[in-house]
């Protein structure tokens, strides 16, 4: 969705708007701030994103500004980072030259909006995955985009522990992921033998450990913005943490994020080759395809668990959302992919026309 122009009809912070104006004035050093329009941006199941047009009189943002205010959605599922922590990760990424919206201010004080939030610049473009993968207008630009995403990911991975500003980030390796997925399955009423089989494979094929890097943990088509065909922002850093450098590669390439273009293995936009080339040229690290395959298995396991957690919000939490409820069905798609990744002989046996 293009967010450079806001609908006039939507306003939404109600009596909190005065407090927000005061906060923005103080944080920016402005003499006055006037908010023109506020609109809730679509697509925030876990976070709310509010587009704000504001006029700053003096201070570091003097003039007209297009901003996004990001805060927790009231009905969301918990993410791993708070908004203030996500702001710190975004600052680190911005300082490293990753293509992200410039982070401006964070507010942990619930007295302002009732919940913590941060403010960043609003960039032009749309992050909708399906058009990015399917719209013919993007066709000529897709290989270059995949290469750029590889370079961006390598740049993200230059952020490494220890970092005083990111001391809250936890290191999560494959063994911890496996334990977490099993703990989830233990609490689920339906047995999932395919997931158990794949988890056992992962447990017995742990890759050699590499130094931890910053993992975005949702680096995929649908979480970056394009303006025409130009990459304008990598979004949604709420799951970031320290981990294996191949984890994000497996996530972007896993089948669940190809938006109907299963043949384009790099995020539904291109072959792997340009994505890998961009990553390898920027990072100087040659990718081990077996290692990436391990992380693709892990990505499918994670996708399956996330899908089941979504339908749990209906099954256990009573959320009356069709979109949420039906997502649980996608876990079986992940199971087919796990079988295809780990049992090529079975593919030959069962996939016949």
């Amino acid at each position, binding site marked *: 969705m293009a967010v450079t122009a806001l609908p006039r009809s939507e306003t939404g912070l109600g009596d909190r708007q005065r407090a927000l104006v005061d906060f923005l004035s103080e944080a920016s050093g402005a003499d006055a701030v006037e908010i023109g329009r506020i609109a809730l941006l679509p697509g925030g199941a876990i976070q709310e994103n509010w587009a704000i047009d504001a006029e700053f009189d003096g201070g570091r943002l003097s003039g007209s500004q297009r901003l996004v205010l990001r805060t927790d959605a009231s009905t969301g599922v918990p993410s791993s980072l708070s908004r203030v922590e996500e702001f710190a990760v975004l600052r680190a990424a911005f300082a490293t030259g990753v293509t992200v919206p410039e982070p401006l201010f964070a507010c942990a004080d619930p007295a302002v909006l009732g919940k913590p939030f941060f403010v960043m610049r609003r960039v032009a473009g749309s992050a909708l995955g399906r058009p990015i993968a399917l719209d013919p207008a993007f066709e000529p630009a897709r290989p270059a985009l995949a290469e750029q995403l590889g370079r961006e990911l390598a740049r993200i991975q230059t952020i490494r522990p220890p970092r005083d500003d990111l001391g809250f980030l936890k290191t999560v390796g494959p063994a911890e992921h496996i334990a977490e997925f099993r703990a989830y399955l233990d609490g689920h009423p339906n047995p999932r033998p395919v997931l158990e089989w794949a988890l056992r494979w992962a447990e017995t094929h742990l890759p050699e450990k590499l130094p931890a890097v910053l993992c975005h943990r949702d680096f995929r088509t649908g979480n970056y913005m394009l303006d025409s065909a130009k990459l304008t922002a990598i979004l949604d850093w709420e799951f970031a943490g320290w981990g294996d450098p191949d984890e994000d590669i497996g996530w972007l390439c896993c089948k669940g994020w190809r938006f109907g273009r299963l043949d384009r293995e790099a995020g539904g936009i291109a072959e792997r080759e340009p994505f890998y080339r961009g990553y390898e040229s920027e990072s100087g690290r040659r990718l081990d395809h077996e290692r990436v395959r391990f992380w693709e298995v892990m990505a499918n396991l994670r996708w399956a668990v996330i899908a089941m957690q979504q339908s749990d919000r209906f099954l256990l939490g009573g959320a009356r959302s069709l979109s949420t409820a039906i997502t649980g069905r996608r876990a079986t*798609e992940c199971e087919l992919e796990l079988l295809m990744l780990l049992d090529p002989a079975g593919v030959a046996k*069962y996939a016949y026309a």
Partner: protein
Amino acid sequence: MRDLPASRDLLALARELLLDELLPLLPPERQRDAHLIATSMAIAAREAASKGWQEELTGLLRAFYGENGSLARLAADLRNGAFETSPSRAGAARAILWRLTIAKLREGNPHFLAANGFTQAGLRGE
């Protein structure tokens, strides 16, 4: 005997009405919801028409385990690597996994199966 038209025919007509006539009238931001409704109706229709692969799965588990077979037991054994020293048992367990997964997707998402090259296979197929 139930009244006619049968529920499967009503469901098919309702889905056609939704996709062909109502969906174009919806604003773009609600069209995805209409597709989700259509998908749910299609899943319901396929499951209602299913011949009941669960019984066949029970049979496979009985053949594998004897009388005390269950998916829960299979899941627990796979977690513990119970068949890793017996290639024939491991292969037989994997066959159940394939059949179960394909059967579920034939009802839940046959397009995904077809897109991955699985056109005819199912719980009965081999």
